[in-house]
């Protein structure tokens, strides 16, 4: 045998020996590289903060859907045929198996409970603990608010469920509507003082956010749906809490209504609590592409997911501040877009308006793909309008790519003013503070103050109109219709569209029932969503809402 062979044989022998000696257990010791252990996570505040970041990110926002909650109302409808808002919800044919579900927020509630449990048990600095615990409790209250407004009473879970240690105790029955409400109120009250008036980092919960959440829930609870006897003390509570927010003197109205919603003005002076997006990443927003005008300059630029109705368009005042129904307003039904208030032009794409430098033509001209979609068959507007409010032209060229960093404003100061005005008007009547609050909102949009001497009813009408216009397409309208018990009226009739047709050489503006815009609402059951069938199947203690 020659030398190289001997050498090779030696190698083989070495190899065999090494292999035999390798400790197989050591060999299998592999650490996952994208995961953090329980011990590492709760070892320091920096890591724990990352867990809380995820809870903030779990707050829902509507900028990656083409079916905004406003499409469930009389403010807008989806231009795309067959969307849930126009079928299941509009016809009230939803069942526990296929209704829109909010039950998934229990996953977020668990995150809050876990964070609260771990941080409470930790030895982190008290100042940090107190602040972050309050933030987590705010977020938990916010999620419960979403459940309460949709379902009424729900199981109140404030601990981390653990099937191994708790056994059957993990099955919880529904708390009453009142208990659920009271929990949210108590939590907000308890944490308000632990939260700063101004957050160290924009986006975190503040005292103002907690009070606004509280004030909003109080307003909801004082409203006819939950306050059939019209207990005025409930309105007074709501007014007081919203007043507390005003008195923080931390917020003011951002001067420009149109650009307030753009990413350039994220975290502006009016924002109380918002949900953030980061353009160019998976957590970017794409509302322009999903909700914006379908065809621009002959090319599809968006899906046309939100078509404002004639009903909301009619709510916009004239520039002189008078509603169009007022004979003195100067409204001309055949020139309906002349001399309207600023917010109309800032919120609605209408026939003859300009978008991305192109004139938007909604007239019924053969071959015009933006003409009102009478057959409800394509993504063209079904109402004669497209959404403009909040859509940043900078991103309207992108289709549905998530390039936008604009925040979805959940609570802003204008709402607090209107909350206060509404509650105070109900509790006390249209006093000066009510006028002041509403007028502040109107003034920003160059509208004159409300006339003095309005009755309580007239003031209620004025506030509701102001609220509808000011907060249009911000996912507020559905809640308002529900709490005012107006859904059985407003969501039980067709919404309307503008048809612009040529007759004898003249363009005629005709208000018609919007194609696909019929709505049905059963007041005996539809004020509450059904508890999802899957949740009922898994927890025999749950009871279904009436009527489902």
């Amino acid at each position: 045998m020659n030398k190289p062979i001997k050498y090779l044989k030696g190698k083989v022998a070495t190899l065999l020996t090494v292999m035999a000696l390798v400790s197989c257990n050591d060999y299998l010791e592999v650490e996952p590289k994208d995961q953090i252990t329980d011990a590492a996570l709760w070892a320091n505040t920096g890591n724990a903060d990352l867990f809380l970041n995820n809870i903030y990110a779990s707050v829902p926002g509507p900028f990656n859907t083409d079916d905004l909650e406003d499409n469930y109302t009389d403010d807008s409808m989806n231009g795309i045929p067959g969307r849930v808002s126009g079928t299941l919800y509009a016809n009230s044919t939803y069942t526990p198996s296929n209704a829109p579900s909010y039950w998934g927020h229990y996953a977020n509630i668990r995150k809050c409970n876990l964070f609260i449990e771990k941080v409470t048990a930790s030895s982190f600095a008290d100042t940090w603990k107190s602040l972050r615990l309050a933030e987590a409790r705010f977020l938990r209250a916010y999620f419960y608010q979403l459940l309460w407004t949709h379902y009424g009473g729900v199981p109140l879970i404030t601990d981390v469920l653990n099937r191994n240690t708790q056994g059957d105790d993990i099955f919880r029955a529904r708390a009453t509507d009142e208990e659920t409400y009271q929990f949210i109120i108590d939590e907000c009250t308890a944490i308000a003082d632990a939260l700063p008036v101004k957050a160290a980092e924009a986006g975190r919960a503040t005292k103002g956010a907690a009070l606004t959440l509280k004030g909003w829930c109080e307003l909801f609870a004082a409203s006819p749906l939950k306050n059939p006897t019209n207990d005025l003390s409930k309105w007074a509570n709501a007014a007081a809490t919203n007043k507390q927010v005003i008195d923080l003197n931390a917020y003011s109205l951002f001067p420009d209504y149109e650009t307030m919603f753009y990413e350039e003005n994220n975290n502006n002076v009016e924002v109380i609590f918002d949900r953030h997006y980061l353009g160019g990443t998976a957590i970017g927003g794409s509302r322009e592409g999903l909700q914006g005008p379908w065809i621009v300059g002959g090319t599809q630029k968006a899906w046309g997911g939100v078509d404002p109705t004639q009903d909301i368009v009619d709510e916009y005042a004239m520039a002189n501040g008078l509603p169009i129904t007022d004979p003195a307003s100067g409204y001309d039904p055949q020139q309906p877009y002349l001399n309207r208030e600023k917010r109309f032009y800032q919120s609605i794409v209408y026939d003859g308006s300009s978008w991305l430098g192109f004139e938007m033509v909604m007239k019924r001209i053969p071959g015009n793909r933006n003409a009102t979609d009478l057959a409800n068959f394509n993504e063209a507007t079904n109402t004669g309008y497209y959404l403009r409010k909040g859509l940043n032209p900078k991103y309207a060229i992108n289709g549905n790519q998530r390039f936008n960093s604009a925040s979805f404003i959940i609570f802003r100061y204008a709402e607090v003013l209107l909350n206060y005005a509404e509650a105070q008007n109900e509790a006390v009547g249209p006093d000066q503070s009510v006028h002041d609050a509403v007028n502040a909102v109107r003034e920003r949009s160059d509208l004159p103050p409300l006339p003095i001497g309005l009755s309580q009813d007239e003031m209620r009408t004025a506030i509701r109109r102001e609220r509808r216009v000011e907060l249009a397409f911000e996912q507020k309208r559905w809640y308002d219709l529900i709490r005012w018990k107006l859904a059985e009226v407003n969501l039980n009739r067709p919404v309307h569209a503008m048809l612009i047709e040529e007759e004898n050489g003249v363009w005629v503006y005709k208000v018609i029932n919007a194609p696909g815009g019929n709505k049905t609402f059963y007041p005996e059951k539809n004020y509450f969503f059904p508890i999802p069938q899957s949740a009922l199947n898994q927890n025999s203690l749950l009871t279904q809402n009436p009527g489902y």
Partner: protein
Amino acid sequence: MKKPLPIIKHGLRVVKLTILQILMAVAFSGLTIADPVPTYGQDILDNIVSISVQDKKLGDVLTEIETLANVKFSFNPKAIPLDELVSVHQRNAKLKDVLGNLLSPLTIRFEVAGDYVILSKSIKKQQENLDRSSNDPKVDSEFAFSVSGTVTSESGEPMPGVNVLEKGTTNGTTSEANGKYSLVVAESNAVLVFSFIGYMTNEVPVNGRTVIDFTMAEDVTNLEELVVVGYGTQKKTSVTAAVSTLKGAEVASTPTTDLSNSLGGRVSGVIVKQTTGEPGADGSSIFIRGISSTGATQPLIVVDGIPRDFTQLDPNTIESFTVLKDAAAVAPYGVAGANGVILVTTKKGKTGAASLSYNGYIGFQNPTVLPKYVNAFQYATLQNAAADGAGLPHPYSDEALQKYKDGSDPDAYPDPDYRDLIMKNAMLTTHNIELSGGTETVKYYGSLGYQFQEGMWPKTNHKRYNLALNLDAQVTKTTKLFLGVNGRVQNLSTPYTPPGRVWEIIGYTHTEHEGPLWYSNGMPGAAITTLLYGDGYNKRNTTALYSQLSLEQEIPFISGLKAKGTIAYDPTVIMNKIWSVPADKATIDKTQTPYVITQGPPSVKPSLSQAYNQRYQLTYQASLDYAKEFGNSHVTALALFEAKGNNTIDIAVSRRNYNLLIDEINMGSSTLSDMTTSGTSSDARQVGFLYRVTYDYAGKYLFEASGRYDGSYYFAPGKRFGFFPAFSVGWRLSEEGFLKDVSWLENLKIRASHGEVGALAGAPFQYLSTYNAYGPAYTLGGQAVQGINERNEYNPDITWERAVKRDIGFEFTLWEGLLEMEVDYFHEKRSNMLVAPDVVVPAEYGIGLSQVNGGVMKNEGIDLSLTSTRSFTDDLQVSLGASFTYAQNTLLKVFETPTTFNNPNRRRTGRPLGTQFGWHALGFFQLDDFNADGTLKEGIAVQPWGKVQPGDIRYEDINGDGKIDDEDHTVIGDPATPQIIYGISPNIRFKGFSLDLLFQGAAKTDFYSNSFRAWAFQNGMSAYEDNFNYWTPENPNARHPRITSAPTTNNTQTSSWWMTDVSYLRLKTATLSYSIPSPLAEKLRMQSARIYVSGQNVLTFTDLKNYDPEATVAAYGNLYPQQKVISVGLNLGF
């Protein structure tokens, strides 16, 4: 030097075997081998040997000489008196002298052919015998009739070593190196029997001819004598496990791009589903014996002994595929074996002068089926009809309809038909050169392959270069070295959006959404045009290398013991580059005359993303292998240690808002928010000890035990190792005395196996209580921040799935190969399947539960293969192969909610996995079902999805409670993966012509044709021509419900209405080839030349419209249709 295996008897074909002989035989199947140079071969006879035996059987002495002299004998044992006692004593003598002394007294002639020393009775001796029996009148009358000729393979190459025997006598010879033989037979009407391992045995009547040239047909059904099994090879006859095999040569000439598509219908026990025909992504899902688990179902793939992917290897370089099916076969793979194993063996070098061969084809592809969308006129007509039904005005005027119909104004009334963008006859071409040869000490095999496949449009294509080099060296008498290097480079190009999205955009390509594909001024008018013909791309370049080095050493002191070590290093690098350039469509201003067609409004600027993925696998194997014969007993034992580590690294970067149209990262926007980066890495480890012991008594009674003690990093410390044993037995009844003389029964074997194997399921580290970190998760203070979320509840006890597999098989060969069949019944019970126990916690629990090892499922069925070969004359051979696989699984225990479990119609347990549930459609509501006021008549169940109208789908109220709800769900379809796959492969050979067909079919499977696959105007998409068959009072039994501008909620419920039986039968491949006769080939200075025409997916019979029956119901993707390929090829040997 390998210990020669014992002599075995197999019908008429009784040959001595060595591994090399087998490899050589296999090599003949598709390869060209040059004549061994006789002078070279003669050197074997100069080998020096020393031998001393006294009164031993000739057979044993030959075996001993094989070892001593490093030679191989080939002979017809019926002609050679193996039991004769001989003596020989020689020291340091040349082999030829030893053989001369030993064999000449027995009148045995010897000559060298290739690697072999071929022994035959000398003609002289035969004549003497004949002389002595000259008083036999029959013999006397036809004394010494001489026949000669050349034996060739199907590809026309001369075949040495073929046994030629006069039927019914011991008179025979073997063909020489140039394939020539000559034999003196007793009479002019004698019958010659030609046989060679791996080839069909054939009888040829002499009929007075003196020259009989004969072409040997491969035995296509199996590798006959030796099969590759896990970590070794075994004799086919002594295998007690369920394995099926396929020769690489069978697929090398078919226009197959991805090797995973080559097994369906060809190998029993394999169920396949090729869901797409997209270049570079057109592989099949392979289910060995169907689906046995709710978890992973794909088999382990092993290439040359190392776990690796095989799909992109060059088909020309494949020696064989072996599919391991039962516990006995897969037990050596332990935790990786439960879903079956496919062993792929690449070609190795052979002794002899260098031989060079070329195989190449050029083919043309067209889709098997394309969705037939309506044209613009039909679209408008259908939309008007929908508006009529809804009582809404027509969206299209009569004038518009007319313009669509006559196409007189294509800019303003466009009819964009995506089919106009599809290239006809897209090219598919493959070229391969192989070089092989070697000496006794070093053998080499090299191959270079190239494949180019065009897609349906210019953006899609796939290019592949394969390089293989296998080197075997006998470095000492007792030491062997093997070096294998198998590399490839793949360049795949597609449009910049994923293929599924391309097909989604095609669905939107209709007149309502888009302009014409091209305006009359040449500008693009549809998104699909700019996507497929504009700038931008998605390119994926893969460089993969499989390298391995083995050293095998015979242990000097223990005869039959060998040690072997292998190291394999397989790096793969994938570079992915996506240059997305959303092109602006042109727009038309119809208010001007003539129309003004201009560039549209601006789109987003281009963006570029690049990803780098590095994968490497390092595998070590060390083994001891023992084989020994004790009288009639034959024992083998194998012990092996294996460790395998995988590492992955992924890094990706991107930039957007490119001002410069240069597709380089550094040329992109320098704004930070326009840049992203990401990166991750992971490790995986497996380690195992395996053994196999076989015992074989007299070739009749076979026992085998094997198993593996296996460890995986998936699980918690202390839970990482598992033991998976298997046992099997076999009984070759045909070797028993009472059956041995049954002339029509050549082989009959019964075998049975039982064992347990494992399967990794779920994901690694489910045992850890961990959190995922990700980012960016949110922004706070205007800055992007990371987030951490809780994973599912952890389960420290998580472990492998266990599969108890049982198998009973029969193998038999009747009437000398006229019928050869192998049939298996199998039964598997898979337990420990990972299931989520949804029912035990409320929905408010708020976190996914840890999966638990709780599911149980059984899977049973049969698979069989059958071959039948018949030679009508020596010019005409007909053979038929068939394979059939039926596998049906049943869920025995899954965590099912009481809601479904308590309703026998809805219960998942007890039914096959993937059984499809929904409402049972009764048909349409008809006018008669309604009262005059439009309300439903009394007694008709209420449907909850809005007011129904005539022409809406009516569902069955199964529980009779007067309303349709979830409780009325029932079974509406079989699983989407077929439960039956079969193949029928007839072939006919006539002179140089050969026709090979493969019909492949599937059954017991349903396709749910929902959403855009069936409905008109789903999501604003177009409609199919089929949608014209919609309900009207005049067409009450239509295929589709009343037409609406968007599918209605009522009519889109999951129901039997949309279920299609997608049983299919297709002519999967058809090949017609012609081999140029060898004299002509020789004139062309070639050993062989063969020309062939081949087709893939030539014909398909199925009920499914618009989509290929193998299409999947997965998301938008995977709808790139299968391709029909017609190719012309050339196979040359030099």
